[in-house]
Structure formats: C-alpha cells, structure tokens
C-alpha cells in the first residue's frame, strides 16, 4: 500500500508541475498578444540568444556537416551512389540535424543562462521589486525571451544548415572527390521547399520550448545558489528531452 501511495504522490506532483508549466505558457502568450510589447528588451534578447550563439552554431554546423560528408561518402560508396552525397547531407541537416542540434546547442548556451538570470532575479527579490512597482515581470522578462527564441532559432538553424552543407562539401567534394556540380546539382533536384519548411516549423517550436522551459525553471527556482543551480540543470535536461520528444511528434504526425 505504501508504494501505491508514493506512486500516487509522485504522479500528482508531476501533473501539478505540468499544469503549472502550462499556465505559465498561457500567461506568457497572453502577455505576448496584448500590448505593450517591450521592443528594446526583445532586441536585447535576440542579440543574446541569437547573435551571441552564432559562433557555437557555426562550429557545430561545420563539424556536423563534415562528419555527415565523411560517413555519407563511405556508406553511399558501397552502393555506388556517391553522387547522392549532396542530397543526403542537405536533407539530414535541413529536416533533422539542423533544427535539433541547433536547439540543443542554444539550450546549453543561452537556455542555461536564461534560467540562471531569472533564477537569480527571483532569489535576490528583483522580480518582487518589479511586481511592487506595478509592473508585470512576464512582459519584461519572459515574453521578450519567448519572442527572441522564436525569431532566433530558425535563423541559427539556417546558419547551421548552410555551414553544415558546405562542411559536407569540403569533406565529400574537396577531400574525397565528389564533384561540385554533382554535390550541389543533385541537392537542388532532391531538396524541396516542404523539406525546408519542415525544418523551419521545427526550429520555431524548439525556440518556443527552450524559452518557455528555461524561463519557467528560473522563475520558480528554489532558494539560494543551490536552488538556482538545480533549476538550471533541470531546465537544460527538460528542454533537451522536450526538444527531442517534440521533434519525434512533429516528424511522425505532420510530415
């Protein structure tokens, strides 16, 4: 009986947590669709989440593309189909790896910082101070991060894809001998706008997931340094898992 009670308790806690997260998202959306929007705060967040992530996205994209080029070349070579290396690299990146890896990198770089920043503001009573000024912290802290995430992620994913495709060409074309015309020409034949849209939809939703989860965890961070560090860890883990889970749902249901 004890373990049934414990199981029930854990389940109820989980459901309550999901409910709170859901309400947090609804409140954020409400503030995002009602004026005033704080444009300067949004721009600052786009700069932080987007611009400051470009180097890490560039490096990750380049190496992912290079690995794909290398692995793809040897695999396709077994079937005498190295001409399809370009489409293979491009489709892998545009439909799957670009949005997912870019999202995971942004979670690690910007998502953790979002949680830590909001968590410290919470524990040092800066959020309370804002509320006491009669200001809604969601408008200043959460909405700008959500909008910035939704704007920045597709752009970062695009950079990831382009850099990855050229990384794949560098290895497959320059080092292993696939012709430039073949690599890019076949890509144009096999990659359609629906593939690009799939990647864009995914990255848009991943941007929202990262901003939502990381902001929520920071906003409800526990007391002191331990509370903030725990919230940051939970935010990164939960965001990463949700990104992968949502990727599967979108791939299986929508495309």
């Amino acid at each position, binding site marked *: 009986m004890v373990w049934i009670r414990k199981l029930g308790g854990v389940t109820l806690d989980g459901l309550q947590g999901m409910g709170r997260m859901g309400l947090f998202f609804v409140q954020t959306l409400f503030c995002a669709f009602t004026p005033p929007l704080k444009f300067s705060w949004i721009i600052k967040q786009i700069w932080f989440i987007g611009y400051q992530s470009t180097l890490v996205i560039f490096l990750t994209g380049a190496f992912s593309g290079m690995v794909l080029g290398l692995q793809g070349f040897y695999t396709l070579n077994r079937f005498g189909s190295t001409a399809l290396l370009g489409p293979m690299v491009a489709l892998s990146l545009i439909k799957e790896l670009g949005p997912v890896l870019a999202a995971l990198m942004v979670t690690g770089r910007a998502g953790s910082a979002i949680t830590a920043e909001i968590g*410290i503001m919470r524990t*040092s*009573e*800066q959020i*309370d*101070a804002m*509320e*006491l*000024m*009669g*200001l809604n912290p969601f408008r200043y802290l959460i909405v700008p991060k959500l909008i910035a995430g939704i704007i920045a992620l597709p752009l970062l994913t695009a950079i990831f894809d382009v850099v990855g495709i050229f990384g794949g060409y560098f290895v497959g074309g320059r080092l292993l001998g696939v012709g430039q015309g073949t690599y890019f020409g076949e890509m144009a034949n096999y990659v359609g706008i629906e593939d690009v849209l799939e990647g864009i939809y995914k990255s848009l939703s991943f941007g929202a997931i990262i901003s939502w989860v990381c902001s929520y965890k920071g906003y409800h961070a526990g007391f002191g340094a331990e509370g903030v560090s725990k919230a940051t860890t939970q935010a990164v883990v939960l965001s990463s898992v949700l990104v992968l889970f949502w990727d599967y749902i979108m791939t299986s249901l929508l495309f």
Partner: protein
Amino acid sequence: MIRLENIHKSFNGFEVLKGISFQMEKGEILALIGGSGNGKSVILKHIVGLLKPDQGHVFIDGKDIGHCKGNDLEEIRSRIGFLFQNGALFTSFTVYDNVAFPLREKTKLSEKEINERVFKELDQVGLAGAENKYPAELSGGMIKRTAFARALVTKPEVMLFDEPTTGLDPIIAHTILDLIKSLHEHLGFTAIIVSHELSRVFQIAHRVAMLHEGKIWTIGTPEEILSSSDPVIRQFISGATGGAFKLY
C-alpha cells in the same frame, strides 16, 4: 490606513504567523522588532500582497489587498514603496537607470523631468555622482540608499523598510535611519521599519510592535516597551542569552 486582521500564514506546514492584528494611522512610523525568522518580513510581504494569508485580511485604506487583482492591486502598490533587505536592485542597470525605471515605465514624464526627479532623489540620499555606477560597484550602504531612492522616486504614501541597516557598519546604519527620519519629516509617509538597531529605531518610531512566537507579543510607544517588565521583552532588548525568549 493599514489594518491587519488575524493573519495566519504557514510554510511547508510550519505556522509562521499565528493571528497577527494591528493597525496604523496615516503618517505613523511603526518599528517591527523580534527575533530572526519570526516572520517580520513575511508581514511586510503580506501588506504589499506579495504573499497571501492563509487566513485573515490586510486592509490598505479599507481595501482588502488579498482580494485585489489587476489594476486595483497595481493602484495600491503604486502608493507603497518597499526597501528590500538586500536592495533588490536590477544588476544590469546603473544606479540612474534603477531609480529612473519606475518613472519610465509607470509615468508619462518626459526624459528631462525624469532626469530632474532622479537627480533630486539621488541627491537626497547622498548619492550624487554615483549615477553611472552599477550595483556590483556599490558598497552595502550605497545599495540600500539607491534602493531607498528608487522606492521614494514615485512619492509613495507608505514606505516599508525590511531591515534597512542589516549588514552595515554602525555609522552607515545610523545614517540610513537618520535619513528615514528626515525624509519622513519632509514627506510625511507612513512607515514600517523592521530593524534590529533598537536604540536608534526607538528614537524614530512612534510605536513599536514586537513579534514573538508568531504573534504580536506587545505593541506600544517606545517608552512603554522600554519600561516593560515582560521577561521576553526585557531579554530581547538587553540581548541576554538564555531566558524566556525562544530562538528559531
């Protein structure tokens, strides 16, 4: 102006406030004293609606803040200034921007008018010349004074001071309390001061309320408190170890 009626509040099953009731008149200064962890800050947070009581009511000019939402809550809060224990300054803003922030966001004043108001407040708290510094570059006393300026800049009718002197050396602590006194004489706000600087705060306050075991143990003029024969009050004021005072 402020009335608390039978406030009860528990955290994780531990009852911190066990029926707090008192009221204050406009322009009055009340010193709230008591041991650490007795719930003094919790009372202040109930007054501004940051915490909701499990039972009881907090009235500000007849309005129950526990039941206020949206614009009503904003209107009440806009009349209250709150000095947090650690200042709660926005760390990414300069001193100037911290003080200007509520004016920029809550009023339609021009940047020129905001500039005048901010410099006036900074001058009032002795921070002229520090406007471009960030909170990380300030001493403890400067942080409290910046927070004080930020709380004052909207001209609140009520000021709540949560341990304004904690962590400061005696001279700066007295300077802050003197500042509260002189600004009160000048502006006439109603104030609650949570402080452990008993000797100084007893000179400033019109009344003193002592919180003990989750209740208002006693409330009266500083003279009445100082002349009390209650062993708990005597021990707390003298700071003697061992006795009737229960530590948390």
